[in-house]
Every structure is written in C-alpha cells, then in structure tokens.
C-alpha cells in the first residue's frame, strides 16, 4: 500500500529514546521510547513503513515513518453495559415509592 500525494495519513517517530527520557520513571516506562504520532497530508507516495514528510493541519512539515493511510477513528460508545442499563428504572421507581 502506497500513500497518495495529498492523501490523509499518519506518521510516527521516536521523540525520545529510553536514554533521553526523564529520570525516575516507573519500570514499565523506562525501557520504552516516547513515540510521537501526527496526522497530515502526504507529500510523497511511499509504502507503509517508509520515511515520509506530511503537511499538518497547522501548516507545519513533519517527517516520520508512515504508519497508517486514511486513519480511522475507532473509539465508539462501546458495548451496552447491563450494570448501567438497570440504573434508570431503579431510580425512577425509588422516586415513585
């Protein structure tokens, strides 16, 4: 899969290696880098995993590894929760009695 020039993509880069990170981090954070991601319009046609520059919404040009093409918002309202669904009826009953 190649990015189209001008298409909406996401790039990522290592903003700080573990050695460059803050001191006194919890164990689980010490060994991993700080990774930055940003979305923008592709300035070249390259394959996923290749280096790419993008024009961001603020007009900056940033470079990183191409990690996603037309990234989708995946967050949702989640599965209905039986523990929550029971609350409304119970409370209305409480106000009636």
């Amino acid at each position, binding site marked *: 899969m190649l990015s189209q020039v001008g298409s909406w993509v996401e790039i990522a880069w290592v903003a700080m290696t573990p050695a460059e990170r803050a001191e006194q981090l919890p164990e689980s*954070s010490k060994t991993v880098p700080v990774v930055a991601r940003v979305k923008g319009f592709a300035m070249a046609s390259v394959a996923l995993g290749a280096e790419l520059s993008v024009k961001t919404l603020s007009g900056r040009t940033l470079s990183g590894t191409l990690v996603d093409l037309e990234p989708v918002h995946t*967050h949702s309202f989640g599965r209905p929760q039986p523990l929550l669904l029971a609350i409304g009826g119970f409370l209305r009953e409480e*106000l009636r009695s």
Partner: protein
Amino acid sequence: MTSYKDIIAKKREITAKALGFAYEKHEQGGLAFDYESMMNNTGYTLDEIRRIQLETGVGNTPLLELRQITRLARKYAPPGKGARIFLKDEAANPSGSFKARRAAISVYHAAKLGYAGVVAATSGNYGAAVASQAAMRGLRAIIVQEVYDSKGLGQPEILEKGRACEAYGAEVVQLTVGPELFAIFLQVLDTTSYFNASLYTPYGIAGIETLGVEIVAEVRARTGRDPDAVVITHAGGGNVTGTARGLKKAGAEACCVIGASVDLGGLHMASDSDFNRKSFTTGHTGFSVPFTTWPDRADVPRNAARSLRYLDRFGTVTQGEVFYATEMLAQLEGLERGPAGNVSLAAAFALAQTMDEDQVIVVQETEYTGAGKHPSAQLAFAESQGIALSSGDPRGSVPGKSIIIPSHPNLLQFKELSMDALRQSYLRNALAHKGAGLLSPREVEFLSEDSRTPQSLVWQVVGK
C-alpha cells in the same frame, strides 16, 4: 533529538519568549513570589475578560436546578437534610466544556500580541477549547497530547478529545505515556515561536473567574441567598483556583469550596502499564494530589493554579460512583453529559444529604459526552483491559483492578481527605525544592499564604 533534561533546563528561556509575561517581576527570592501581584498583572479586568469571552460565545451558561436528584437525595437524608442541588451547564460553551473560558483569554492575548499560533499540552478538553478559540480568532493551533501506551493502544476518552481538536483544525501531536509531554511541548514552542497557551498561566486562571461570578449571581437571583457550597472537579488546580477567586470577587466569602477527584490511588500516572487501566483521564487524584501539594510542576515558571489557597474541603469518589452519577443525571434530569462534571455530581449527591434543606450546593461544571467519553465506552474498554466489573458497594473497588457500580444510590459517598495532611505534604515538597540553606522570613510567610497554614506551623514542619 534532545534529552528531557536538556529541554527542561531551557524551560524559563522558552516560556519567557512564548508568553511575553514577566514572571521575574513577581519573584521575591527563593521559594517566594507575590502571587496576587502576578494574578493582577494579566492586564485584563474581570469586565474585560467577560467581554472577551462574550465575543466568542463563551460563558453565560445555564444554571439548572436538579430537582429530581435533590428529591432522591432527600429520600436518603436525615429529616430536614438534603440541600438543593444546582448544576452549571458548562457543556453549553462552544467547545463543550468550561475550558473554553481558559482558552478564550489566552488565545485573545496571543492574537493581540501578534503571535501566529498557540500551543497547549493537554490530553483533555482544553485542547479542543484552544483549537476552537484559535479557529474563531484566526490563529493556528498545535495540541500536544498523551494518548497511547507503548503498544499503541489509545485511551478512548483521549482519542475522542484528539478527534475534537482536529475537527476544529488543530494539529495534534499524540505521544506515548510519560512526563516528557511537557518537554516535547516546550520543543514545539521553541521551534514554532507560537504562544504558550498553558493551562497554568494567569490568563488561563483569570478566564475561569467569570464562572464563579456567574454562579453567585444566578444562585442569588434564583434562591435569594449565596451558594453554601460549590463542588469543583479537581485535577491540575485551575478549576478550583479560578472558580474560587470568582466566588470571592462576587462576595460569596462564606461559600464552602469543595474539591472532588476520582480516586485512582495506586496507579502511577507515568506508568506505561497503568496508563490504560484507568477509566478517567482527568479530574482524578493522579493529577490533583501532586498538583495540590506542589503546584510548580507545571509548564510555566510559576503556576497560577494554587488550589491549597482556596480549598476548604477536598475528597474523592470512586470510578463506579461517577458512572452511576452520569446515569442518574441522564435518566432523572434528561442531561447526557461527560465524565468531568459528574465527578462533582457524585460528590454533591452525598454532600447534599449532610446539608440543610434550605441550603444550596452547586456542581460547577458539565462537559459534552460522546464516543469514547460515554460510560459504556469506558466500561467496555476497562473490561478489555482485564478490569473486573460488578455491582455492589463501590468502597470495595481497587483502581486498576476493579470497578464497582453502586447497587443502591445510598452507597454514594464523599471520602474526605485531610487538608492538614495535604498542607504538610506541600511544606515537605517546598523544603525539598529549597535544598540547602535557611528559609528567609519572606519564604516562610509565602509558604504560610500558599498553604493557608499559620506561620508557627510552617516553622514546626520546616523545623522537622
């Protein structure tokens, strides 16, 4: 790339250029500075701030009386108890939260000084507020967010807030977990020469004062009295500080200022493995306790948000109780709102039951809700992270391990924290920052003001 240490070492230099605010004018040697002179140095009066906010449709949000929830609280309260509960519907602001008040002044000021854009470090609604205000004033916006763990898994609420920032036209730099957020934010400021729209500047706090002022005016008009208590969701301290300053400016000196946070005790905020084990991304103890006990951990030389100066009481509620309050607000009052204000609502429901029927308690904010922010989104995500969900007594829940939805509304509780313990913790932190050398009389006086502790007690703690 540059290391965290190297960037933080340039903090004063970078922020001075990116704010045009003379912090040094208010310094009084060592730990001490003149807080009130700093706050009065924004160059804007309360009336001017109100006018600036009105230009972009910020403020004058409805104050709603929660009649059904008040009735329910009275059902479980002792005879004669059960204060009237009001709610300030801050979701009616342009970006859907009270944060528009903070952003309005920073962005106006940035435009006035001729900056081409604004930058803010926030995982929260503030990003959307800055982006929205920047859109209205024709400035560019960059938001730096902490979003992912090292496996690239994003917290749903923060993903939603990032989406909102982009919807208003901001560039969003999304980071993995860690305190390096502030350093990378400083780097962006340094390379863009944009304005530092930090949450913690005097502008960011002055913008919230109108919220306190509006609450007093509306409660007086509706009930003929001052609010007896205002419950404020407490995170970095700006909400508490700005609202309380507004209450005082409006003359409600006797109003009890109560902070409420979600209890996330035991979870480390900088931990890659803890990051996605929480269902609340702000308004929790992971921010409120460290910021209350040492405000100057922020991205400015001196934090204008200093909650110990204003808090009369501070306590916690559990994650399950906030989800319950969110349902209660939707199902009994017809208001579907996001998590932040519902932290205060859960607390207010319990607190109202200890107050007299003719008294007034105000929940001082709501925020918009939607995909990612909704309780079902958060609970489904928690379940996918191995958090145990059940119904019962929420006091048995353990942050990061279990969430217990109250099986009955009379189980909602406000767990009071000791203000004295927080003050002592602040003083110990101050001492650690002082390092070697004796405290000057002005430093002792400052610590006394900043923690609302008598000087004699400051000496006692410092002496230890």
